[in-house]
């Protein structure tokens, strides 16, 4: 069991992972992985399917008691999963307010829903929301806790392309306003390039590659730096690059 002590963190860290290891039935998925994330930093993690991206994110979220190594995570971390995971028997605002310990949770939840453009559906049942609406509610539920670290586990992969673009813009504007550190797990290189300060490639249980993107947002996806980085990342991922440039 990894030690999860936020007390180890310096003021320059919301995540400090040292030698994080996880194996399933002898098959090593995370192999002595090190990772630091700074406050307010937007980090995207890409990797082929099965490389342990989600395993790492679950470990950071405190959902994996069997992970080994040293792991210190900001105590206010919040998670958005790939599926919205709204509790179907609680109205949307009540989902956002779930577990919130503030004097007027309903008002706080409504403000958060307003921020993601979902105030009108505050009293709706979750099963009546569209996929994009549900994921926005999940975002509001994470942000209403004012997290120091926002863990996003492929939150847009189940959405259609147009909704995904809207969600990218929404996440960026929310990030710019609240400035949590973000770890976005994704398999979409373009998503990583559009959003992140730093892109990590996870391979063989370790961070095989790290690239900073010091470009202003919104970014032109045809910017020469991005085009070059895209080719490099896709090569890292073992995808033939002729088809994409």
């Amino acid at each position, binding site marked *: 069991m990894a030690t999860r002590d936020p007390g180890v963190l310096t003021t320059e860290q919301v995540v400090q992972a040292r030698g994080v290891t996880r194996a*399933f039935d002898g098959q090593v998925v995370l192999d002595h992985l090190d990772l630091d994330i700074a406050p307010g930093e937007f980090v995207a993690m890409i990797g082929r399917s099965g490389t342990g991206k989600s395993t790492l994110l679950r470990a950071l979220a405190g959902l994996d008691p069997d992970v080994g190594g040293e792991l210190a995570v900001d105590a206010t971390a919040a998670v958005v999963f790939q*599926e919205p*995971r709204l*509790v179907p*028997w609680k109205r949307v605002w009540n989902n956002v307010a*779930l*577990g919130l310990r503030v004097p007027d949770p309903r008002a706080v939840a409504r403000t958060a829903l307003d921020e993601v453009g979902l105030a009108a559906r505050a009293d709706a049942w979750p*099963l009546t929301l569209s996929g994009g609406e549900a994921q926005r509610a999940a975002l509001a539920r994470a942000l209403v806790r004012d997290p120091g670290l926002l863990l996003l*586990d492929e939150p847009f992969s189940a959405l259609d392309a147009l909704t995904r673009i809207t969600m990218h813009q929404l996440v960026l504007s929310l990030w710019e306003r609240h400035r949590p550190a973000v770890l976005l797990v994704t398999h979409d290189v373009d998503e990583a390039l559009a959003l992140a300060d730093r892109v990590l490639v996870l391979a063989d249980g370790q961070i095989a590659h790290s690239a900073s993107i010091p470009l202003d947002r919104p970014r032109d996806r045809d910017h020469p730096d991005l085009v070059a980085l895209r080719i490099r990342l896709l090569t890292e991922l073992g995808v033939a690059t002729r088809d994409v440039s």
Partner: protein
Amino acid sequence: MSISTGSSETRRGSPAEPDAPALPLAGVTGGRPRARGSRGRGWRRSGWLRLISPVVVLALWQILSSTGVVSPQKLPSLTTLWSTAVHLITTDSPTYGTLQHAMLISLERVAIGFVIGGGLAMVLAVVAGLSRFGENAIDPLMQALRTLPLFGLIPVFIVWFGIGESPKITLVALAAAVPLYLNTFAGIRGVDGKLAELGQVLGLSRAEQIRAIILPGALPTILVGLRQSLGTAWLALVVAEQINANAGLGFIINQGEQFLQQNVIFVALIVYLILGLLTDYIVRLIERRALSWRRGILES
């Protein structure tokens, strides 16, 4: 915590790659309302359509008995039953007492038995559902109880409890407990592990987790158990009241049998039927209210 995801996922390299959501409720899994509107209205209309076949059966009954095709000794006509019922209600005969008094006695027995048996079953099911220890301690006994022929216990109960109210109420309590226990236990175990995980991420306490996620998640199944359990409770009462009772609907049936008054037996049976339907209807109302989040699928 016994409800958790992951055992099947761990074999693949990436345990958190999402599987299909494991909501236990039919129709909820899709997450999106498919047939907006149309199904909701069709449902309501079919409510009236459901009345047709019972009415046809009643009409046939009346025709067969009043024309003498079936002898009134075997099947009294509905009009005879009506006057018998009126008579039983208005006269306090030494043989039968009044119908409403018998009904109240029976209702009381079912209510007491159900509250004791159902309450106990809920507590046991929650304890068994929430911990492996509780399951190992409780579940084998309840499974054994389930296979026990309940009515075979009647002679035993008479020896144990005599012939007063206790053997009747015990029988009703046992009959009510078994289906409610089984369904509540299954309902708790069927709660989506992903939601339990969400509760953990949101920092819910154990009590909050149970109140906000586990019990509401199990509620649809618990309500199915409630309906079954009320059904078996009434069933047990009929049997229990035919042994050594001096009041109640079962007593009236017994008396009717002794005095060869088929019409009285039929009236008592019909009252049982109506009370059974009524309790079922009440549970349906509770269901409609408590599960309105699911109705969203049908009506929005």
